[in-house]
């Protein structure tokens, strides 16, 4: 559904409840509507939040057992902004535990199901948010993207997924994962709604030291789908790595349509040596930052507490029972890379390589308005067959969108087509703080695909 199509809080709430048996997208649902402004850009719009966004007086678990009883005493800045704009929060959505994962299988409440095929994953970590929009129940959901956690699930579920520029949207009140990469973003079914949502969510917040002072524009009013003379980079290194012939053909058809609209397409490449570094650099930085960020989850001041004979034993027992094996393994690896004797060859080295990758990536944007690539190289995997890659090697076509997190550049995924009834997608990235350009190009792309507003309803 689109933002301007009205749906009452009660109707959205009841549909979300009915959807649970099929989709399992939610951690908790609001029984009653909380007070919000009656006028505003999102007046009367039901919105779902990822469960790592603090909501005053309402359970916020980050899909982790250690926070299974955590009820925040304050609202995240974006929750206040949404209410000020007239939106009503209707549910909190499932995610991979603390954001760590790309399948949404690693959630306390179990896997989230893809509305296009319930046997397939939603992708993660913002999987619950993706499917409540993809199934047409709400027009907007708010997630977070540390290493493609919005853009990959958007690709698997056929919706628009936006990760704006790092620092565009306040992170105050959001349970972190990796602070140098974490970005708040969202899902909609069309580009116009995506442009409108950023107007509401973006802006400087003194509570978040990484929040940007850059001006926020009226993106939805400025939308211009005219592609005449626009220079669009085609990320050939990624597209050539993709094996699926139908996805490749879908992208080539889009290229033809873009040319027909007057766009100038420019081939872009990055050395494969650099592409193969994306995943290791990401894992090193993300795991190290995560282990530091989550040292405050100890069961003492908040969260699930296990008994023990000493304070140390309470913490150890609480953290052992509170984190999954997968998350504890990531913490060990992250901590190892921070040891004094390892830091220069692991964590700090990864930060240096990150700079090299970002320099090379920035070079691609010197003579183009935006860069296009196939978002994900495959359709959504089957739940049974998918695995949360611990440290196995994968094709860089799986991980290339993490360049958007390394660089902080705004990046979004748009539905591109279908194969056997399952969606696949295109990813668009622009220079930092040039979201206006990104939405303009996306609007033109959406005209080419004709997929604005598409949803897949799931009947219980």
């Amino acid at each position, binding site marked *: 559904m689109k933002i301007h199509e009205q749906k009452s809080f009660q109707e959205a709430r009841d549909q979300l409840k009915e959807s649970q048996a099929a989709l399992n997208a939610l951690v908790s649902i609001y029984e009653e509507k909380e007070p919000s402004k009656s006028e505003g850009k999102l007046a009367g719009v039901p919105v779902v939040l990822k469960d790592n966004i603090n909501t005053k007086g309402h359970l916020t678990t980050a899909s982790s057992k250690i926070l299974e009883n955590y009820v925040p005493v304050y609202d995240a800045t974006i929750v206040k902004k949404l209410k000020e704009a007239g939106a009503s929060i209707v549910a909190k959505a499932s995610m991979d535990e603390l954001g760590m994962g790309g399948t949404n299988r690693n959630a306390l409440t179990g896997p989230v199901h893809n509305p296009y095929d319930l046997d397939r994953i939603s992708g993660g970590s913002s999987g619950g948010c993706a499917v409540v929009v993809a199934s047409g129940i709400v027009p907007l959901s708010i997630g977070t993207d540390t290493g493609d956690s919005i853009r990959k699930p958007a690709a698997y579920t056929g919706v628009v997924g936006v990760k704006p520029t790092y620092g565009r949207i306040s992170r105050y009140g959001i349970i972190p994962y990796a602070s140098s990469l974490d970005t708040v973003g969202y899902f909609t079914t069309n580009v116009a709604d995506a442009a409108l949502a950023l107007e509401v969510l973006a802006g400087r917040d003194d509570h978040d030291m990484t929040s940007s002072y850059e001006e926020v524009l009226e993106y939805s009013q400025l939308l211009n789908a005219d592609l005449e003379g626009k220079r669009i980079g085609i990320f050939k290194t990624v597209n050539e790595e993709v094996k699926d012939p139908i996805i490749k053909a879908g992208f080539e058809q889009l290229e033809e349509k873009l040319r027909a609209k007057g766009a100038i397409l420019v081939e872009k490449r990055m050395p494969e040596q650099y592409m193969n570094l994306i995943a290791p650099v990401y894992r090193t930085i993300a795991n190290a930052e995560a282990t530091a960020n989550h040292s405050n989850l100890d069961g003492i001041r*908040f969260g699930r507490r296990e008994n023990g004979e000493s*304070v140390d034993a309470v913490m150890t027992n609480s953290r052992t029972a509170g984190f999954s094996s997968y998350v504890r393994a990531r913490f060990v690896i992250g901590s190892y890379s921070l040891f004094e004797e390892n830091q220069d060859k692991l964590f700090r080295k990864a930060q240096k390589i990150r700079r*090299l990758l970002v320099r090379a990536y920035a070079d691609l944007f010197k003579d183009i308005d935006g860069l296009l690539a196939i978002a994900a190289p495959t359709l959504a995997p089957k739940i049974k067959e998918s695995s949360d890659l611990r440290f196995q090697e994968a094709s860089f076509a799986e991980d290339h969108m993490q360049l958007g997190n390394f660089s902080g550049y705004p990046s979004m995924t748009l539905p591109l087509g279908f194969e056997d009834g399952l969606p696949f997608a295109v990813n668009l990235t622009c220079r930092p703080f040039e979201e206006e350009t990104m939405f303009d190009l996306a609007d033109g792309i959406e005209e080419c695909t004709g997929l604005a507003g598409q949803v897949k309803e799931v009947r219980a």
Partner: protein
Amino acid sequence: MDIERGIILEKFSNEYFKKLANDLRFDLNDEEIEALKRDFIEVEKQERLFESIDTDGIEPMVYPFEAPTVFLREDQVEEVLSQKDALENAADVRMGHVHVPKVVK
């Protein structure tokens, strides 16, 4: 057993992983340690991959942008969490304090 796995076993014992985990205030069972050993084969590979990249003269990239967004404010109390709110989520609260097992024996 392949050579790399052998090297990992030699370098990283079960006790080593237990200590790493306990320093982070959690535990690992034997099965979890076995899985971690497999992960560390990849960590070692990754370290070698990183070594092959020349980063001389390159500064670590700590955040995406270097424009200043953080400034010192006046040292005045601005926002305060009430005692009730601060204790709201603690599992054990007694007489206005978070209660924990005895520290000094």
